[in-house]
């Protein structure tokens, strides 16, 4: 298994290099100058030039890339142009926020999907199925940030149940942190559950057609046992793949939710990084999310045999 993991990680290297190249040149293609932005509207041109030199932005792009890559390989992602913090520190603190929100949301959404999807498949064509599928379709149609705003309006502003803004790092005080994270997590859980419910339902329908389900029933097993022991593990495998893809996507992609709830997460770090042309931050973030993407997919592949022993990781 270890050799498999190593092989997979090595195979990901070209992908990561392409990501690094793309992001490196893409951010530099965007008009706008980090030094100028930092020094502001009335800055002296010589000060801008000096800052350029200090940041190494006066060198040819390929030299900058080589330097950056060399530092990355030695574990140094550089420092943020705007805040002067090490990018790695920024990434770790921000990834914690995003990670907590994404992991909990996707976890909850998966649980909801397993229950709702299996039951809907089991009662296929019935009222329950219709209700579940209508709900899932509706969820798919709602823009997540709009949902977030509505939740914020209702629970934060009208009902005063939950704080509207603010953040406590999870690692500092998980219980208080959760208070701030309930709404974002609820938003993300709802909007991600739609796809997962549909996926779970359709694979459960496929499994319910198979002989071993009939075989299990023919042994006299109760429906609950049939669903939990024979349908669920087999129907879950394809959903697991989707969960992996969702996780990989969300790690870099909840900028909009983070903006609505003002969470200091990775997505917002990237967006503000792009908007302020903070090259090291954008590069670091994208490399980080790409690595996460690769790792999450690897983990999913390692987990897969738990649900489908036919698949072996070798």
């Amino acid at each position, binding site marked *: 298994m270890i050799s498999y993991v190593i092989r997979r990680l090595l195979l990901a290297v070209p992908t990561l290099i392409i990501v690094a190249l793309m992001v490196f040149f893409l951010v530099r293609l965007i*008009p706008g100058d980090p030094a100028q932005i930092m020094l502001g509207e009335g800055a002296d041109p010589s000060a801008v030039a000096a800052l350029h030199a200090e940041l190494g932005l006066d060198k040819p792009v390929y030299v900058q890339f080589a330097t950056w890559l060399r530092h990355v390989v030695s574990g140094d992602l550089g420092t943020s142009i705007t805040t002067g913090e090490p990018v790695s520190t920024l990434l770790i603190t921000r990834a914690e926020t995003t990670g907590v929100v994404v992991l909990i949301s996707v976890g909850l959404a998966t649980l909801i999907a397993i229950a709702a999807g299996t039951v809907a498949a089991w009662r296929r064509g019935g009222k329950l199925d219709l209700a579940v599928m209508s709900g899932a379709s509706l969820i798919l149609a709602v823009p997540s940030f709009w949902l977030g705003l509505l939740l914020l309006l209702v629970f934060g502003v009208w009902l005063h149940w939950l704080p509207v803004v603010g953040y406590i790092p999870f690692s500092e005080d998980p219980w208080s942190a959760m208070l701030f994270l309930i709404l974002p997590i609820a938003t993300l859980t709802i909007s991600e559950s739609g796809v997962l419910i549909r996926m779970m339902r359709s694979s459960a329908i496929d499994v319910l057609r198979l002989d071993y389900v009939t075989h299990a029933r023919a042994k006299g097993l109760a429906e609950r046992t049939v669903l939990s022991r024979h349908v669920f593990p087999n129907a879950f495998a394809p959903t697991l793949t989707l969960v992996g893809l969702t996780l990989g996507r969300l790690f870099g992609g909840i900028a909009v939710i983070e903006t609505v709830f003002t969470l200091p997460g990775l997505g917002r770090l990237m967006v503000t990084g792009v*908007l302020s042309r903070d090259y090291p931050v954008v590069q670091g973030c994208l490399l980080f999310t790409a690595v996460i993407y690769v790792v999450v997919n690897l983990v999913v592949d390692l987990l897969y045999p738990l649900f489908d022993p036919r698949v072996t990781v070798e």
Partner: protein
Amino acid sequence: MRKTIAGLILIAAGVGLGLALVHPKAPPTGSMLRARLNADIASSDPGMKRDANTDAVLLHVVEGLVALREDGSVGPMLASGWTVSPDGRTYRFALRRGIRFHNGAPLSSADVKWSLDRYLAPDSHWRCKSDLSAKGIAAVTVINTPDPDTVDIVLDRPAPLFLATLARLDCGGTGITHRASVGPDGTWLYPIGTGPFRWGEWRHNQYVDLVKYDGYRPLPGGTDGNAGGKHALVERVRFSVIPDGSAASAALLRGSLDVLDALAPNELGTIAGAPGIMQDSAMSADFYGILLQTGAPVLRDVRLRRALSLSLDVAALTRVVTHGTGVPDSSPIPAANAFYGAAERVLVKRDLATARALVKASGYRGEPIELMTSHSPPEMYDAAILVQAMARDAGINIQIVSLDWATQFARYSSGDYQATMFGFSARMDASQMFGVLIGDRATDPRKVWNSPQAIDLLHQSVVTGDRAQRQQIFDQLDAHFRSEVPAIVLYNTRRVTALRTPVTGYRSWSAQTQRLWNVGLGNSR
């Protein structure tokens, strides 16, 4: 194999949960006043790596020799007073006695010299270094400390704006810090100043906490700009970073914020009339408008520029985009400025007939004119839409180029545009307000107005100390500006601050900065 994986997952989950439970909660002590920043501060080093938020926060911690008063004039701060030599080149400051830094060290002239030398050092990025150089208003030639309570600063030429420059917010108020603010290797640690609050904790992108400085020695009197008597009335001040305007209003309404400064005009509707919320406001000494490239095709013709100006209903536009908070203005000198006289007060009125005639005379045939704008601030975006709609009535075809702020700024800085929406933040001196427009485009592409006459008048305004004479110069500049139309000024903003009712003593200021000294929480939570 299966078992191993399952085991590993369980262990990982357990460790994660365990870690989550270990950290105890640290409750904040004492009363805390919570304010908002729309972006994180750039650094904790005054005037070095900065923006308006940075200035605002750091001026609670550090103080300069002099400080801006409420009316834009310069008053004493760490210096109890000063004298100027007859040749206008030597300034002698007498330091106030008994002042101590936050680390307990007494303030001496050596500390002042150390700070100023650091600002003026060759490798410093101090915002105002170029102003105090040969190219600027005057270069500092030498700083002397004849005794611990006296500082002499010698300039290479007389400079009436020298003190005003030292007091400028964007210069970090030329704040004096203790040398322990810098580590042994020369890197900046955190500011050890003399202000009413000392540096607390900076959580990047989350908040900056300042803590009451018990050893502060206030000047007599009440709030007066950055000068005057300052009293820390709360134990702690927290500036929370909340980039999103709607989120900030929601936070105020929810009670998670006490002071919401620089309320976006389009948030006013949300805040107005909400129970438990008050407002305070002040005119800002800024201006927002349209910069026109007088060298660009089509706009090269002054008749078209005038036509554009005449096509706009500035009053209506201001009312809508600033939600009634702004003041329509046609002069680069803002209404809050002392030099805003009778001439400057005259507003350009919408005159579609004349505008159409001018358009016709210029031979313009509906060629698209690109107007650059961004969402920073959001009103500029709205204003562009209205300018487009109003100019359409005069037969001028404007196409909006919507960019992100960084791109717009880059193109502004290189002069790469036909027309752009743009705003200039408060500068307390009228010369500085004109200065953002006037200059030689060849050497500084940011300048839109390279008329030699204007350049000359601007220079005169800087070297003259006499008020009446300066007013006359500014009136001339203003008249010239209105006939040449290198830019169209639209309005000055009003800085609105929303407060929760327990908050007492807050005063808005035209210098566009929030001040949380002399601000209390009526009934302590």
